[in-house]
């Protein structure tokens, strides 16, 4: 498959088969646009919008947990609907869509030196199908019976039974349909991201010269393409169970004294399918964050990322390993207990490449020239929260330790820290970093610092103490924590504290949104390369980049993405498209 032609003979990475699409009207330029940058902004805006809904839902849940009995409208039914929608939106419709659909679309073509994605029309469809999925999801709030309250894991049999809100109404049907649509839309987008990295790279851009951001998004997309089918299969089968009365996941059930028609299904089968998707999903969110944070640290510490090769291997290794650890979510699910030995081992092995990544980030700081810009602050905060959340993962991955801790608040604290707070901090850092490229203006510094400190410290204060509630044995997914002997008075106070912090952190996000909108017009002019970065997206002739990204000629890449503070070079950065040899220690090319 590899066609060995001399590098000079390879045509510049124009889109060969499909000519670059040129918009003819306002509609095709801004709405039904095939330009990856516009699609990226559409994805990001939609994801942020639905993410705000999920944020409000989390407030409502914290109201109930922090001040039980005070708010009449939060019935157990409503609580479970909030918790389910919050989880599903955050994991799938916000984080996955934002990292891959948002950052992937914006950064991949720019960073690999392409004019656009390779299949722009499919890319546009991807967004519209995603939007449809979001609309279907939102519509469940207005459906009879409300949205589903099955928990974001949607475990059958309860997900489609009458004891669960939305189980016998429209809620679960709309949720499953929305997920199916999301997966179809994502597959369209994912094909683009993967094939653009494979085929769209400009001359000289070898895989080992790619910024780690692209490596992270690329690997995550490959994983998502292989993992989402599992969710698709599970959703289709559950939809059939619910609508047509099949029994894929439904055994014989006696519900409230009445025998249901189902017979012979296996609830565990659903869990295997779900987590076969669900665990890679964690890394689908984490790997782009890993990649982006590597670039933020390197750029703002003015130092090449330490151990680039190791970082690439670790990304690929984590991606591959994450497909053989799924059942660590199922240690107490009643599956065969001997699986525990295997999955605990694989799970703890995956800690090694992850730890290497952490070391390399920290070692990049070592002897760097650290500019404490806002993106850098967010990157530092990411390391703290990610290390914290990753280490608590060692508790839960170690099968026997998981037994008392599973299904408690410890798990909630762990996954919020590691795949909620940490990646979201990267999202913020990335927005502060690339906003100047996308709009031509800087975000307001004062508001940014306020946003950073409140978000970072607030989130840490929410989730760090929460682990200890779990250690006490307080179960998760409890709409009320009353009548429990293990629940002490002080634990109730801690819950109130966590709730208040949640409101404060949520408020800081409003400041951030204001900053995003305000700075479009009033921010300081950024110029083309405000961070003095090396990668190709900062070398575009226009800022924001025009349609086609790079003007008349595509850039030619002469070096890797991390030539910062090279001895002998005049500046402390050398853009990837700058020819010439620098540095004393270089072997002849």
């Amino acid at each position, binding site marked *: 498959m590899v066609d060995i032609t001399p590098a000079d003979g390879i045509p510049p990475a124009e889109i060969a088969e499909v000519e670059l699409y040129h918009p003819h009207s306002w509609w095709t330029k801004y709405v039904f646009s095939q330009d990856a940058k516009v699609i990226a902004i559409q994805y990001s805006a939609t994801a942020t919008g639905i993410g705000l809904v999920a944020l409000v839902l989390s407030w409502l849940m914290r109201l109930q947990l922090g001040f039980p009995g005070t708010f009449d409208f939060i019935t157990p039914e409503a609580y479970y609907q909030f918790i389910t929608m919050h989880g599903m939106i955050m994991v799938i419709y916000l984080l996955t869509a934002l990292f891959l659909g948002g950052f992937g679309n914006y950064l991949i073509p720019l960073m690999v030196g392409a004019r656009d994605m390779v299949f722009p029309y499919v890319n546009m469809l991807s967004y519209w199908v995603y939007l449809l999925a979001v609309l279907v999801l939102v519509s469940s709030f207005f459906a009879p019976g409300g949205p589903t309250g099955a928990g974001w894991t949607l475990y059958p049999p309860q997900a489609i039974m009458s004891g669960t809100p939305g189980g016998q109404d429209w809620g679960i049907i709309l949720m499953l349909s929305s997920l199916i649509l999301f997966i179809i839309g994502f597959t369209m987008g994912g094909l683009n991201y993967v094939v653009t990295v494979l085929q769209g790279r400009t001359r000289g851009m070898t895989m080992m010269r790619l910024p780690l951001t692209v490596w992270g998004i690329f690997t995550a997309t490959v994983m998502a393409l292989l993992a989402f089918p599992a969710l698709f299969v599970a959703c289709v089968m559950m939809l059939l169970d619910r609508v047509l009365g099949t029994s894929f996941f439904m055994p014989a059930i006696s519900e409230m*004294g009445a025998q249901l028609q189902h017979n012979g299904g296996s609830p565990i089968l659903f869990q295997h399918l779900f987590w076969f998707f669900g665990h890679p999903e964690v890394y689908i969110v984490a790997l782009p964050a890993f990649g982006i944070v590597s670039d933020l640290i390197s750029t703002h510490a003015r130092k090449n990322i330490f*151990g680039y090769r*190791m970082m690439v291997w670790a990304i690929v290794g984590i991606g591959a390993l994450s497909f053989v650890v799924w059942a660590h979510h199922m240690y107490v699910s*009643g599956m065969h207990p001997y699986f525990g030995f295997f999955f605990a081992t694989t799970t703890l092995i995956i800690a090694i490449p992850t730890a290497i990544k952490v070391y390399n980030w920290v070692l990049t700081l070592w002897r760097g020239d650290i500019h404490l810009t806002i993106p850098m602050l967010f990157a530092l905060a990411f390391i703290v929260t990610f290390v914290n959340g990753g280490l608590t993962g060692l508790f839960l991955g*170690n099968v026997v*330790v998981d037994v008392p801790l599973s299904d408690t608040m410890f798990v909630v604290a762990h996954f919020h820290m590691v795949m909620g707070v940490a990646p979201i901090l990267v999202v913020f850092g990335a927005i502060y970093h690339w906003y100047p490229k996308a709009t031509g203006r800087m975000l307001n510094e004062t508001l940014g610092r306020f946003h950073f400190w409140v978000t970072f410290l607030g989130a840490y204060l929410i989730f760090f103490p929460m682990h200890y509630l779990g250690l*006490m044995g307080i179960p998760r997914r409890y*709409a009320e924590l009353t009548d429990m*002997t293990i629940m002490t008075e002080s634990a109730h106070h801690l819950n109130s504290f966590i709730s208040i912090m949640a409101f404060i952190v949520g408020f800081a996000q409003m400041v951030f949104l204001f900053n995003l909108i305000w700075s479009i017009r009033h921010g300081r002019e950024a110029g083309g390369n405000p961070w003095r970065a090396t990668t190709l997206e900062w070398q575009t002739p226009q800022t924001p980049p025009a349609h086609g990204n790079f003007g008349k000629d595509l850039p030619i890449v002469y070096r890797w993405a991390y030539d910062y503070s090279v001895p002998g070079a005049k500046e402390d950065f050398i853009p990837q498209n700058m020819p010439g040899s620098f540095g004393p220690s270089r072997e002849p090319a």
Partner: protein
Amino acid sequence: MAVALVLVLIVVGSVLFHLLSPWWWTPIASNWGYIDNTIIITFWITGVVFSAVVLFMAYCVFRFRHREGSRAAYEPENKRLESSLTIITAVGVTALLVPGLFVWSRFVNVPSDATDVEVVGQQWQWSFRLPGKDGKLGISDTRDVSAENPLGVIASDPNGQDDVVVEAADLHLPVGKPVKMRLRSIDVLHDFYVPEFRAKMDMIPGSVTYFWFTPTRTGTFQVLCAELCGQGHPLMHGVVMVDTQQDYLAWLGQQQTFAQLSAPQQTGSADQAPGTMASGLKTAARLETVGSR
């Protein structure tokens, strides 16, 4: 400067919180002190790693912060450093994993002298079944569940006739005797969870799961459901009382067997309390009061 200070404060604060906060696990009441020990080992190793990484970061931020004219060092990689860090990590991970797997193999291998106790979960209450004099539980099937036979014991199995059925009431266990909890559900997933026993396991309709433990002290313990099972999930409480052998036998003597419970049915009194329905409705009624609060 401020950033470095905050990073140090995070480490110090987290450690102090861990040591001084009043939120800690409940006093253990089973033989699974091994699990607690494994958690302690894990806390030590992870705590050291967390402090080391964040403090090192704080030092870097302080020492290598940008100053006029400063320039970063140029060091693409350092193989020796990277491989030694990898090896140290691997050792640390092994130190976590090995004790964990040893305890797990104890956890999954039930001692031969453990007595069977069946727990049956349903929305939203707990019922129990103890083997009768023959020491064996009769087989059961969800299809046989009815108001008169809430646990779905198959009447044709002679082993089931003398089984003690405890419907929606407290379970008593003798102290110091290993028990194998055989877990069943007749509707959705549940999880039999007593925080003081540390052990838990999901119950799956259509199959029997298990875990085992030995109660080590007498007392009254609350049973919680630890797997989301519908809107009554947070109200699905139960009680396990760990008794001395004497008290236990006294309690056991008062319980009814399956044969006794199904006897009235043969005499034709159809108005026997419809157990399953009634208790399900009981929780449903409680839910309504919660809802209207």
